[in-house]
């Protein structure tokens, strides 16, 4: 029995060491590369005067895996209109990108998965709802509200984009990396709650109930998006 416990402790210490090494590498890369835009604590660096203000990583809705893909492919690949967040696959090796995404997730926002689950559960279950009714409601609200900025096909090319506030570039929703739960929380609480610039995507939860918001997300997910992340 003692030997068994010793083996478990030894294995655990090995993996802890690997994780620690990965975090150390991630920290080093972050401080060498990301810190200039995202700041020391991941909260952004206003001194950079970027066209698109960098996200507050401590509020990011992205999981570790999603963070990995954003660093690897760049935000534009996943629907951002601007390419200010570049694709680091041309700069870093894969294990370095994994180390970086681990560091960002573990240090700045370690509980995001629980937060998403908890917030989503608060909004009630929609499994029993009629899907065709949801798509109908979702289409109506999307076309009336969302399409002005995101475009009728969700490609981020709505008729209002040239007349929006500075540094707002609506996402191409057909390429979004967000899950339906994440999209719902993003729409409900607005982008600022999840780390974007303060006057970015507004909080529609003040205007629409959970069913309506979930219907819009359903419409985006089933009808508009290309990728099924």
């Amino acid at each position, binding site marked *: 029995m003692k030997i068994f416990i010793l083996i478990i402790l030894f294995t655990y210490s090995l993996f802890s060491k690997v994780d620690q090494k990965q975090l150390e590498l991630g920290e080093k890369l972050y401080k060498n590369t990301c810190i200039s835009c995202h700041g020391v604590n991941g909260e952004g660096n206003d001194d950079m005067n970027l066209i698109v203000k960098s996200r507050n990583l401590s509020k990011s809705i992205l999981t570790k895996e999603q963070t990995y893909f954003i660093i690897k492919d760049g935000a534009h690949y996943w629907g951002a209109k601007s390419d200010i967040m570049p694709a680091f696959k041309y700069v870093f090796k894969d294990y370095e990108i994994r180390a970086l995404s681990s560091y960002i997730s573990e240090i700045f926002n370690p509980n995001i998965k629980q937060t998403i689950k908890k917030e989503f559960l608060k909004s009630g279950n929609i499994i029993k709802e009629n899907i065709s009714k949801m798509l109908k409601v979702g289409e109506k609200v999307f076309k*009336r509200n969302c399409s*002005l*900025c995101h475009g009728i096909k969700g490609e981020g090319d709505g*008729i*209002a984009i040239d*007349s*929006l506030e500075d540094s707002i570039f609506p996402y191409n929703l057909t390429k979004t990396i967000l899950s339906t739960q994440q999209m719902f929380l993003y729409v409900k609480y607005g982008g600022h709650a999840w780390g974007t610039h303060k006057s970015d995507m*507004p909080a529609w939860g003040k*205007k629409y109930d959970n069913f309506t918001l979930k219907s819009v997300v359903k419409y985006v997910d089933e009808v508009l998006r290309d990728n099924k992340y």
Partner: protein
Amino acid sequence: MKKITILSIFVACGLFATDHIIDQKDKTFIPHLITVKVGDTITFKNSDPFAHNAYTDDEDNEFDIGMQAPGTQIQVPIKAVGTFNIECAIHPNMLLEVIVK
């Protein structure tokens, strides 16, 4: 005689119709509550440096002005008695309450 009376009523309505100016500034309809009458018009004036919209789903007064560029004005007619809300499709906090007498 009947025709003349009806004609007089239409002329009177036209003469006394009022245009109500609603300013869209700092993502707010100003004023946020108005009382109007049938035949009046509402002019939406976008004083913000970014786009706005105004619409209502009220059955008898339904309209949607679409995307309104900064610095522009768009007029809509009031067609029927009732109370309804006008909202901006881009900014969810904007609300204008209209009472039609």
